[in-house]
């Protein structure tokens, strides 16, 4: 369980403080699919970064099953991320000089995971292992980055606009894989997106505005990706 309370994060903006997160609280259960929506600049990415341990909050607590990461040192935060989290970014960030397999190993080696085959097949990249990132389409690259993230067996998968650069068809493909693998591997997904349709497949939808959570909707019956209306 992830429990966030009174999270505050501010940035210096000229002479004033800009509150990117202004007293945010949230609880997420294991195995949930959380979608965060909100206008640009509302603090979505900041929220994701802070709760995933990429950035430290100014104040507030972040509890992972009673383990507080809000006040950890950089080194301990790194170990936490290594253990619990994985990321998918809109820009993929595959290492351009490594082929797909080596890129996936980047995640797998962190946890000593020897079974990367299943994951490669699971995201439908079988046969493309030896390709370099630039030899793949955007969708394929994003799938490779999902495989890389999942190869480290995370408990929490953080995604910042993973389909932002993809068309409808490919986006749906990506979401299908994510859903499928979530069912298999039982991890929690927290996803930032601009696309409100994706909210239909989530178990919890959060709306943010000006650094605050303005609405939390629980969705007892999320629909399947194939039923999505874009």
């Amino acid at each position, binding site marked *: 369980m992830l429990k966030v309370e009174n999270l505050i994060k501010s940035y210096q903006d000229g002479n004033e403080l800009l509150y990117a997160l202004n007293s945010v609280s949230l609880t997420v259960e294991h195995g949930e699919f959380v979608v965060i929506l909100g206008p640009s600049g509302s603090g979505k990415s900041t929220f994701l*970064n802070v709760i995933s341990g990429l950035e430290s909050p100014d104040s507030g607590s972040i509890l992972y099953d009673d383990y507080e990461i809000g006040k950890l040192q950089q080194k301990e935060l*790194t170990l*936490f991320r290594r253990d619990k*989290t994985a990321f998918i970014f809109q820009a993929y*960030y595959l*290492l351009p*000089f490594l082929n797909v*397999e080596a890129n996936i190993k*980047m995640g797998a080696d*962190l946890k000593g995971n020897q079974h990367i085959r299943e994951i490669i097949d699971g995201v439908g990249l079988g046969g493309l292992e030896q390709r370099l990132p630039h030899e793949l389409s955007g969708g394929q690259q994003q799938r490779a980055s999902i495989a890389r993230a999942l190869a480290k067996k995370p408990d929490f998968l953080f995604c910042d606009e993973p389909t932002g650069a993809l068309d409808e068809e490919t986006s749906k493909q990506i979401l299908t894989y994510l859903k499928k693998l979530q069912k298999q591997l039982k991890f929690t997904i927290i996803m930032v997106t601009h696309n409100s349709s994706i909210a239909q497949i989530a178990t919890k939808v959060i709306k943010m505005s000006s650094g605050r959570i303005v609405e939390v909707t629980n969705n007892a019956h999320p629909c399947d990706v194939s039923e999505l209306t874009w």
Partner: protein
Amino acid sequence: MKLNKHYFLILVVVCAMFICSLLVFYLQNTSALKKVLAEQNQQDFTLTLQDEADITELSKKYSFMYDLLAYKVIYDDKNIFRLMKDTRSIDIPMYSEGAAPKTINEIAIDKNFSQDNQLTLGSALTIGNRTYVISGIFTLPDAIMPMVADNGLAYQAKTQAFILCDEAMYSIWEELEKVSYSGRFMEELSEEQQQNALAEMRLNPNIKSIVSKEENPHILAALNTKEKMFKICLLSAVCILVFTVIILLTTTIIQNINETKSDMGILKALGYTTTQIAKKYLIIGVFVLVGGVIGYGMSSIISPLFINRINAAFLVPDIPQNFNGLQFILFIIMPALCFSILAFGLAVFTLRKPPLEMIYKTETIKVNIFVKKRQKRRKTKPFRKTVFRSIITNNILLVFLAMLTGFMVSANLQIAFSLQAMADKVSSITLKGIEYESNVRYQEAKEMESLNADTPYFVRDCKMEFPNGEVLNNGQFMALYNSMSLFKLYSIQKQHNIDISQQKGIVVNDWMRKKYDLAIGDTIKIYINNDIYPLPITAIEQSVYGETVYGDGAMAIQAGILDRAVYNGVFTADNVEFDNKQHVFVSKFEDIVKSSSQQKGTYIALSFLFIIIGLALSILTIGIVVKVIITANRKYLALMKAFGYTNSECNRIVLSGFRIIAYIGFVIGTFYAIALSHFLFGTLAKSSTIAIPMTPDSKAIMLSLIIFAISYELIMLLYKKSINAVSLQEVMMK
């Protein structure tokens, strides 16, 4: 498309600084030295004549100009003065301050004496019981390693002085005048004609002795050796340096262009022309120019310091550090222009590609087939190993640079240590076998009866003719009377002292062996007063210079060189004070130690130059390697951290592979250093009166290795910080 990379700018500046300062340093010191000596109308040889000979006749015959070298030596309680008239036309004194003495109360003194005794213009100096005012301070081209008093005393600037005075004052002193001539060949004589003339003069019966400047061990040979040493060392240092700097600069430019490639692609896509985009790279020349100017300034500060250190043992004219327009253009403006053009050219070359290709930085993609195959074969290679291999196969220059790091430290440090070892060896050989406190030469020969317990000898001047036909005019034959003497001859080949009483012939030194191509068993003809004594060589002793051959006293009597047991000198354990009534000279062990340690200082100074160059460049290079890797991979380092790779893991994955490469470079550098030092010292040994023994040194290798390891790890530790500084925020930004 700005050249906003801070390190790049610094690098260019530093590189240019290095090039310029060293080149300028080298040129100013070698060529200026020569120029100064030429202006002073430096002598080609020194002559002494038989009583009845006529110098004008000789000078016409062999076409040289000459000048009387007359001087008087004056001793007082503290000092020895060599008094000379200020009328020289050859070896003209150069006044660094003041002017020539014009009245009977004025004198000029040499620069070393003035410095060591804090004498300035207008100061008073007392010689004997007369006091003079100093009107000028000068240096002499024929007194670079001077012998003030002809008495074998090692030169000490503080107590021995050269004095120039006017005619009137010179004639007041009643000391015995010693007369020889300095000669300089006419300009029109070629080098070969000069050598022939010298050879003919050696055989001329009217000439008592002739010493060319090259073979004069006490005066100019020292300079020649030094000059050559200087040239070879500096030239090789400068060569390594220039080579490295050019590679470094070119790499940096390429790297910079690669980094800004996508920006260039965007501009091109927008419709800018190739020249419009590429011309911005011309600015690199400005950086090189700035660096060059700084370097030029630096060299004019550094080189006098360095020169002073090197000249500590010699009386060398001051080298004027004038601004030289040609040098400035050649070493500052030219490189700046070249690098500008190079950068421009490379940018144009890069811009030939279609804009899209440039925007997507396709250069990282040309991973070669070799790597792919390997990856296919060994599928289970862990991530960290693949990363390192990809980094180096994508930028093979980095491997080269990393190797260069080890190479430079190892090569430069070991040459430096070899220099130091050589200096040690030369000085220890100089001192080897000398167990006396004083070497006393009497004015009159003494009978054996008045002999005390010390080691007596008899020396006579002689002419020697060698099997290869060469002749040595101003040689000496020394008859030793005691095999267990305070003055031992040592044979390196046999690794023991030579027992002189067992020798049925003569002993020559190693320098003569090399110079005249001698071997044990050869016969040398010794001419004494028109008599010829052919004697076989029975041993070779390890002195590094000198024109003296040794023989047993009894053997000398038997051969007829001596008619009875007399001696005119003695090596003694007593500390004998020089007395000019009785002694020709008294040379002391401590003087020899002193002058040898001064010589050593020269080599040590040079060796430090090497160490500094080696370390500085190596640090610079490894810095570039690391910087290039980190800048090119910042985003991915940040990503790895986001995934949970710790700082030290990132560091290990990306950088640690370079360690082994650098060490391979070190090994190559070691071989290079051994080869180079053999060549260096081989050349040096051939061209000087000093025979230099040289062996590769395992201690030097160890020491360089330790220094390298420490500095490498320290640098890596520093750069680890810059990996740590790669922030996670960089992943989150688009």
